[in-house]
């Protein structure tokens, strides 16, 4: 029992550490997760970690939440998954909550207004880079390109509802994959 409690605490603390040091989130977290959970703690094999990444790509939600839940569960079951997920969320929850208390007032200060005006241009560049890297990671075939173009046009020019676009894309992707399989080739 005591050993179990110690393990839960370790999961909580290790994932809190991961939550604190990963700025920007996303794939930047992977090397740190690997270092903490596979190299230092031997909780998970490096090969399994690759599976975790693939898994979080094909399930909804941020990669850090998926990895924490998966590793926590493998190490110590349901409570382990809970501790690890709580750990990875807690630092950013606390930090962002504190920021939210004064961000609006802070935005009214002159120098901050100037800074945020400049930042708009920088954020636009960050978003473009995000599109490029998402494109590189996505499937490369005719069905994928058609879905990309159609969803861009539907949302940007016809203000289509995002949930409806997501669901239609899932249905079209599934239909295309099944049809291709029936005809004996792969998408």
């Amino acid at each position, binding site marked *: 029992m005591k050993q179990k409690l110690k393990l839960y605490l370790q999961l909580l603390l290790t994932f809190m550490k991961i939550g604190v040091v990963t*700025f*920007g*989130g*996303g794939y930047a977290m992977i090397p740190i997760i690997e270092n903490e959970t596979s190299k230092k703690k031997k909780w998970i094999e490096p090969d399994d970690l690759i*599976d975790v990444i693939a*898994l979080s790509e*094909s*399930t*909804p*939600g941020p*990669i*850090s939440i*998926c990895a924490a*839940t998966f590793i926590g*569960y*493998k190490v110590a079951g349901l409570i382990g998954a809970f501790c690890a997920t709580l750990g990875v*969320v807690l630092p*950013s*929850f606390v*930090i*962002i*909550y504190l920021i*939210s208390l004064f961000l*609006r007032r802070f935005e009214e200060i002159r120098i901050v207004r*100037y800074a*945020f005006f*400049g*930042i*708009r*241009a920088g*954020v*636009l*560049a960050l*978003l473009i*880079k*995000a599109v490029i890297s998402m*494109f590189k990671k*996505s*499937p490369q075939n005719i069905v*994928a*390109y058609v*879905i*990309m*173009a*159609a*969803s*861009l*046009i539907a*949302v*940007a020019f016809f203000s289509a*509802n*995002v949930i409806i676009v*997501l669901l*239609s894309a899932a249905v*079209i*992707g*599934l239909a295309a*994959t*099944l049809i291709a399989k029936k005809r004996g080739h792969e*998408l």
Partner: protein
Amino acid sequence: MSIYLLLFLEFFKMGALTFGGGYAMIPFIEETVLSHGWLTTGELVNFIAVSESTPGAFAVNISTYVGSEVGGLFGSLCATVGLVLPPFVIILIIAKCYEKFKESLIVRGVMLGLKSTVVGLIGATVLKVGYEVLFPLGFSFENFGTELLTGNFWFIIVVFAVMLFLLLYKKLNPILIIVLSAAAGILAGYTGLISV
């Protein structure tokens, strides 16, 4: 509906439906916060900068922030729990039957659709945010030469081009991009190049 339940449900939907993490969520967040009047596009852009400069996943950060703005501490708890719950439950289920899940043709097909649509959705957001940032007063051909092409406009164009170059070809860290563009804004503000 109580504001807390609404926050929980809206972020639960996001947590359940956005694949790819990070910026893949932005189109969804934009639609949600604008339709409820929780944030403006300008505030959302500011928050992207804040989130890049603080630890943690963007999706978690934005849910905590919107929750707090709309419903205080309890609001931010409801939004964040709503966001985290779907991936938590889904991963728990899948952890048990991962091998089967990986091989499944249905999963592959659905993923083909979702991964592709996310690219288009972010593309749409970039267009919308870009329009907001370049033409905050709206765009029309009548005032094109005069009111639109101000110092603000040229400032954004130049800083955007330099930052994109630094990101794509110099592989600069996003935090550095934010710091540099903030510095450019402060400099331009105090020298009177831009009026904000």
